[in-house]
C-alpha cells in the first residue's frame, strides 16, 4: 500500500476546485444582510431574550455549512427558574434550523 502511494500521488487540484465551488456557492448567496442563517440567529436570540435574560457568554452559535444542507445550532443557557433556589442552571437546545440551499 505504501509502495503504491509512492507511485500514485493524488491530484490536489480537483480537491481545490470542489472546495472552492462549495464555499463560493455559499458566499454568493449569503452576501450582505440577505444571509438567512444570520437573520435566523439574530431573531432567535432576540425572541428568547424578550422572555429570559440571556448571558451572552452562555450562548453558543454554531454553523455547519454543507453542500446541500446547512445547519444552524443555537445553544442558549437559561437559568432554571422553577428551581432557582438550588442555583442550578440547565443547558437547553433552543433552536436548530436547517437551511436547504440546493
Amino acid at each position, binding site marked *: 500500500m505504501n509502495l503504491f502511494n509512492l507511485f500514485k500521488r493524488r491530484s490536489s*487540484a480537483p480537491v481545490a*476546485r470542489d472546495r*472552492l465551488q462549495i464555499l463560493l456557492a455559499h458566499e454568493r448567496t449569503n452576501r450582505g444582510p440577505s444571509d438567512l442563517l444570520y437573520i435566523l440567529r439574530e431573531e432567535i436570540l432576540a425572541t428568547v431574550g424578550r422572555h429570559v435574560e440571556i448571558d451572552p457568554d452562555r450562548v453558543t452559535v454554531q454553523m455547519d455549512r454543507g453542500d446541500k444542507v446547512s445547519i444552524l445550532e443555537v445553544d442558549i443557557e437559561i437559568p432554571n427558574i422553577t428551581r432557582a433556589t438550588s442555583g442550578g442552571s440547565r443547558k437547553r437546545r433552543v433552536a436548530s434550523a436547517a437551511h436547504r440551499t440546493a
Partner: protein
Amino acid sequence: MAKVVVVTSGKGGVGKTTSTAALGAALAQIGQHVVIIDFDVGLRNLDLVMGAERRVVYDFINVTQGVAKLTQALIRDKRLDKLALLPASQTRDKDALTEDGVLGVITALRKMFDWVICDSPAGIERGATLAMRFADEAIIVTNPEVSSVRDSDRIIGILDAKTIRAERGERVKKHLLITRYDQARAARGEMLTIDDVLEILSTPLLGIVPESQEVLRASNLGSPVTLNNPDSGPARAYYDAARRLMGEDIEMTVPTDKQGFLGKLFGRRAA
C-alpha cells in the same frame, strides 16, 4: 475619451502592480497614450517597478489637495513617450484620498490619455474601492490557487455593487487575467487549470501569464517585463492581453519562455 481600467484582485501579491506596468507599457508600445496610477496610499510601489522611484516629486494626493498641478505630478516614462505614471503618496493617513479628489484627477486624465489604468491596493478597504469607483472596465488578477480565486470572487461582487457604473445600473466590463500559471503542474493535477478557474469565476479571460523568472528579473531592473524582455513568455502574454483590451480577437495561448540551445547549456545569464 479614455477608458478607465482598474487592475484589482483582493488578495495581495498576485501581480497587480506587475500587470499594471506590463500592460501599460504594452499599450504604449502599440501607440496608445497611457497613464498608470498607483492607488496604494502609504505603500507605493508602481514607481519602483517602473524604475521611476528617483523621479517622484509630487504625488496623487498633492494633486487632489491642490499642492501640485496634475501635469507636474505626472512622470513621463523615459523609454516610452506615450506612457506616464502618477505615483501614490507615502503618507500614512489613509483618509487623505477622497472620492471627490479621485474624481477630479480621473476626469482630467480622461481628456489627456486613451487609457487610465488604476493599480489597486490589495484588500477591500478605501484605497481599493476608490481605485475601482470610476472604472469602465476591470482586470481581475488571479493566481490559480484557492485563496486568490476566493478573493477574486469577492472583488467581482464588489465591482458589481460599489462602482459608479453599477450604481447607475450599467456594468463594469470585467476581464480575468490569470498569472503565475504553470501548465505542467496543472496537467499533473497539482494546480487549478484555466478551465477550473473560468468555471468558478465565470468571467471572460483576458490572458494567461505563465510563471516565469523574467517577472522578478524585470522588477529587479525597474522595467516592465514587456519592455525588459519582449520575447519572454510573460511579455508575450501581456502583449496579447493588451491587444485583446483593444478589442482584437487573438487566440488564447500560454506563452512560455523560449530557451536557446546555448542558454540550456550555460544556464541563464545574471541580470
